[in-house]
């Protein structure tokens, strides 16, 4: 790029984080820090059965033996886990039967985020579970879904109302011993969504969970569990935002997906946690464990993610392809700007015969950020005819940022066919000038080129999200080029 462009590139980010407001709502907090009493307190607040508390305590005790992982390509700050508040809830009634009972401040908050909780006003065809801090605020369209036998509710409710399902599946994909952050989550998780699609049912609407961190100094630890029975289908969306705060906030979530015979689950995320300011102050630390299992034959799980937020992202939505003829896809766009760091990718574990996986990862780095793709493709001896295609592209805006790829292959079956393609590109001065010459200013040109670059992934998002995500990409890079 020319000197001129370089200069423009350094005038990074006047970008305003649009969701940075806070809601003044009465919040119930528990004291800072973590110990067995805190774990018991959280469980008690949630009026949980004994088995749930046992699960938490087992996880907590295991966590004490663990250390934070050092392997990601991240500058990980020391996190003082005793300085975090592990439970925060809007003080009013934690669950509402009708919209009239919800605190107007809360309704207003979600309205401002474009998530109306009022079913009348809601986007046709999207059911929402809104989670603020540690508590699920409202789940829309429950009755409509219940008629089909679909369960869509908060995790806390599921623990009470569908204990057998929760007991059977919780921790079956991400065991409580899995990794430092997953184990911490298993001990202190607050709320999240639970979704169960019965045999043969095609869920007629998009299900979505919308996470919002509001309270200061708190961590958010939610858990999502999706079970798709034989021959069922569901498409699931997840969105997240947080206020702008100077201190860092911790987010450590778990998502587990189980797909039985012939079932298909599509999971899409638009992750837009507060990324911190342009000097790298504040922002969410996002340590997430997402994993699905294609348990039954011919089942399919696809992960699509658009990652624009968080100061630090550590996240590898993965899939265990256990059944025969199973399919998994991972489509990702990760944008980092300013001082953001992302270490993200996927793991595809092939166990079943003729299992197929596709990985399309598009990294975009700007400012002083670091963006890494880390992906594992593992083919076990049993996986005759396994196939993987990986395409891993990086785009750099400016020369002060970094892009890295760490592909790992562990292939134990000679019939496996594994393909890997990787590219690194820059937005060319000639491309920008070409757009300029057609009347587009540079900001628009970059937006257009970036969206073109990420198109393969954006196309996988449900319509309602795709437009939003396109705008988000452009906003996230605003100011990173003239």
């Amino acid at each position, binding site marked *: 790029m020319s000197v001129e462009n370089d200069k423009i590139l350094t005038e990074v980010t006047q970008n305003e984080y649009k969701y940075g407001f806070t809601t003044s709502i009465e919040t119930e907090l528990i004291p800072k820090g973590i110990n067995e009493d805190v774990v018991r307190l959280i469980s008690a607040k949630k009026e949980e059965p004994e088995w749930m508390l046992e699960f938490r305590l087992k996880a907590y005790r295991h966590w004490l033996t663990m250390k934070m992982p050092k392997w990601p390509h991240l500058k990980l700050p020391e996190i003082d886990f005793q300085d975090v508040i592990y439970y925060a809830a809007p003080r009013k009634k934690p669950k509402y039967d009708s919209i009239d009972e919800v605190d107007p401040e809360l309704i207003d908050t979600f309205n401002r985020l474009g998530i109306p909780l009022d079913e009348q006003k809601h986007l046709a065809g999207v059911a929402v579970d809104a989670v603020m801090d540690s508590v699920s605020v409202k789940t829309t369209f429950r009755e409509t879904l219940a008629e089909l036998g679909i369960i869509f509710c908060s995790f806390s409710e599921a623990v009470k109302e569908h204990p057998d399902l929760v007991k059977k599946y919780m921790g079956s994909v991400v065991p409580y011993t899995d990794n430092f952050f997953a184990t911490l989550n298993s001990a202190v998780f607050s709320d999240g969504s639970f979704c169960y699609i019965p045999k043969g049912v095609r869920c007629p609407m998009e299900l979505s969970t919308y996470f919002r961190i509001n309270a200061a100094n708190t961590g958010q630890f939610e858990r999502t569990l999706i079970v798709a029975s034989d021959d069922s289908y569901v498409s699931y969306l997840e969105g997240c935002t947080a206020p702008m705060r100077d201190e860092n906030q911790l987010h450590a979530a778990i998502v587990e997906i189980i797909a039985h015979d012939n079932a298909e689950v599509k999971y899409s995320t638009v992750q837009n946690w507060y990324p911190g300011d342009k000097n790298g102050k504040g922002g969410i630390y996002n340590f997430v464990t997402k994993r699905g299992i294609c348990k039954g034959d011919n089942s399919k799980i696809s992960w699509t993610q658009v990652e624009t937020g968080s100061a630090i992202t550590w996240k590898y939505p993965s899939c265990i392809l256990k059944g025969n003829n199973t399919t998994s896809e991972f489509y990702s766009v990760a944008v980092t700007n300013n001082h953001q760091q992302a270490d993200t990718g996927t793991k595809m574990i092939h166990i079943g015969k003729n299992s197929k996986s596709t990985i399309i990862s598009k990294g975009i780095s700007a400012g002083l950020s670091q963006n890494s793709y880390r992906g594992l493709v593992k083919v076990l001896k049993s996986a005759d005819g396994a196939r993987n295609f990986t395409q891993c592209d990086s785009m750099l805006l400016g020369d002060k940022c970094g892009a890295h790829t760490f592909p790992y292959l562990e292939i134990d079956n000679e019939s496996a066919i594994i393909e890997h393609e990787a590219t690194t590109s820059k937005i060319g*001065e000639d491309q920008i*000038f*070409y*757009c300029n*010459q057609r*009347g587009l200013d540079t900001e628009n040109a970059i937006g257009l080129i970036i*969206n*073109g670059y990420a*198109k393969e992934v954006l196309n996988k998002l449900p319509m309602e999200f795709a437009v939003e995500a396109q705008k988000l990409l452009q906003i996230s890079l605003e100011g990173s080029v003239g």
Partner: protein
Amino acid sequence: MLEIKNLHANIEGKEILKGIDLIVKPGEVHAIMGPNGSGKSTLASVLAGRDIFEVTDGSVSFLGKDILDLPPEDRARMGMFLGFQYPVEIPGVSMVNFMKAAINEHRKYNNLDPLSASDFLKLMREKKEIVEITSTLTNRSVNEGFSGGEKKKNEIFQMAMLDPKLAILDETDSGLDIDALRIVASGVNKLRTQHNATIVITHYQRLLDHIVPDFVHVLYKGRIVKSSGKELALELEEKGYEWIKEQY
């Protein structure tokens, strides 16, 4: 329409344009010829506002306005179009989206509302016919995987869509077979009016059989060394550039 006075421009400290003077009036077609490396593309880029070139002296006025301080997008919106010698590929960006964005930026500049989807598609259809370009091209990403000839046709298609006051076509004929050349030239001719002007940069006389210029200029070593009527092109075709090189 366009008035260039004593234009000097550098790239990386090296002077490429060494005092260009040129006046273009509405309705005129000017041909600029000259050996490789003379500065023809540089002149086109400088007029369009590419910032890798540094203007060190002189002035350029377009439609009565001094444009050297304007960013390239404003010059484009005023009605200056550059047909690139080497059109770039923009992967993943469909021609339709690209053109829609471009047209609407031009309209916004002229205080017009954005075109409706149906009007836009109608315009696309109309203009596609002029350059005999097929939907298989306009449905693809901008120039991605286009052959050399397709890229050039696509430039003329974009010119037709944007309806510029001044079109600068940089070697639009190079790499074209006879049929493509005829199509491109007839596209340019169809778009010609009393109110717009064209600068055709070319290496060969053959394009000028189809697009008949009012003036022919020879650019050599950063200067216009000879200007004349269309007969100059024939002379160059016959004698090559050697005699020019010897003289200057």
